[in-house]
């Protein structure tokens, strides 16, 4: 699914989180929203997911206006910064949650849910943890469970808020590859937010550099490195 962001702006009271920004995300792309904290990248991601609504502007999914769509209608697989796993549920129940929450007519039968959860646990290479609670998992395992939970709803896109932020350097490297593999396998349009330029450059097809609620540059990693468009981009990527 391709996503078009058309002159989206967002203010919270007196503070401006996003000045009007526009961005076209081609279908199946892996896009990084890169910028320091307060640059508006998380706000933009949350607007895509339907967790915030823009003050003005439009969001289009496959060319159709999706600005007023509810968070449930959007079917965006969202991975939260601290993963937001349901702490009172086992890993199995966490992953099955989205399938069980469907209206009765669209809900898969029990055996089908079990089959899909098992398949997702294989995909994230953690086949044996179905019965554990989130507190009993390592940070890297939690991140992968959160990813599986988001994938379980057969999302139309994948949105990740600082997916590697809470992990140590070694795990981070491994999971980057993991995300790349899952993206390539599912072919989902994927947008992730990061403040780490290495992560953005290494992982993304398209990097969107943001600062102070503005998009500074959109380009392939190598282009941004070789031809920074503004002073800010030059400073930020050389830091």
């Amino acid at each position, binding site marked *: 699914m391709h996503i078009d962001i058309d002159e989206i702006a967002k203010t919270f009271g007196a503070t401006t989180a996003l000045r009007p920004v526009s961005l076209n995300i081609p279908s199946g792309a892996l896009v990084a929203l890169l910028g320091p904290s307060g640059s508006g990248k998380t706000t933009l991601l949350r607007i895509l*997911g*339907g*967790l915030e609504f823009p003050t003005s502007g439009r969001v289009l999914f496959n060319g159709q206006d999706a600005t007023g769509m509810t*968070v*449930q209608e*959007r*079917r*965006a*697989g*969202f991975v*939260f*910064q*601290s993963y*937001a*796993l*349901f*702490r*009172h549920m086992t890993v199995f129940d966490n992953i099955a*949650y*989205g399938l069980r*929450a*469907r209206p009765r007519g669209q809900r898969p039968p029990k055996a089908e849910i079990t089959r899909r959860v098992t398949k997702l646990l294989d995909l994230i290479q953690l086949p044996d943890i179905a019965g554990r*609670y*989130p*507190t*009993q998992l390592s940070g890297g395992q*939690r991140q992968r469970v959160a990813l599986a*939970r*988001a994938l*379980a*709803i057969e999302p139309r896109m994948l949105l990740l808020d600082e997916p590697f932020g809470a992990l140590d350097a070694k795990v981070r490297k491994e999971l980057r590859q993991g995300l790349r593999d899952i993206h390539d396998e599912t072919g989902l349009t994927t947008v992730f937010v990061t403040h780490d330029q290495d992560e953005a450059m290494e992982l993304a097809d398209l990097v969107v550099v943001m600062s102070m609620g503005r998009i500074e540059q959109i380009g392939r990693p190598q282009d941004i490195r070789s031809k920074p468009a503004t002073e800010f981009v030059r400073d930020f990527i050389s830091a």
Partner: protein
Amino acid sequence: MSDTALPRPAFRAATDEAPLLRIALIGIAVAGLAVLVFAPLAVVFAEALKQGWSAAIQSLGNRDARSAIQLTLLITAIAVPANAAFGIAAAWFITKFDFRGKAFLITLIDLPFSVSPVVAGLCIVLLFGANSAIGGWLVAHGWPIVFAIPGIVLATIFVTFPFVARELIPVMIEQGRAEEEASLTLGASGWRTFWSVTLPNIRWALLYGTLLCTARAMGEFGAVAVVSGKIRGQTATMPITIEMLYNEYLSVAAFSMAALLTALALVTLLLKTILELRHADQLAATRRH
């Protein structure tokens, strides 16, 4: 000053206290509990059973006593669910939304703790009494509030309002909104999110708040004394009946009723302990990651 000359004490952990200090602290705590908690409890039961079990039970069996017990249970059965619902709603509103005047609203929730229950009772009398506009209209239509059960319910709800909300607010602030948001992105409705994510996460705080609320609702005296009119057999709750019996020098009857009220409170505490023991593993699992 050279500290090399000082004799070195035996090594002990930084958080350990000297043995003498430890004994003293434990002693003070035990003595305090004994004098302030256990002794009064023991006296209540001893006084109630002074003339034997049969006298105590007989005193609880007469019509007025039974009416008082039923009334207290009825009031509690109305006030506690109402406050649980109000408490969840208030805590939800305060923790999941950002708005102006939030701090003021939190202070307002605490108001029943700081206002004397007698004052609260008087407010209800002034507002709903037969001489007020609202009260006059209600009485004329056969719905008296003051000196009747609705007044007692109102007074009890007012006095016990903060218990549930106060327990829930810190827990819900600490948990944030991320899990609810995750549930919504997974396609769940707001209603389903509340039942399957929010409520399980707050259930222990809710249970604790509800039990405290129950104990207080059964024992409330001041506000109820003002609004109830203390009509024996009609609007006299257990605490009011205890006071009336005591003032009439019927000490066995007074203390029997007091012992029963105490026993009800102890049962709520026992319930809480049992639930905590039974669900210890879930309790551990639901702590913050």
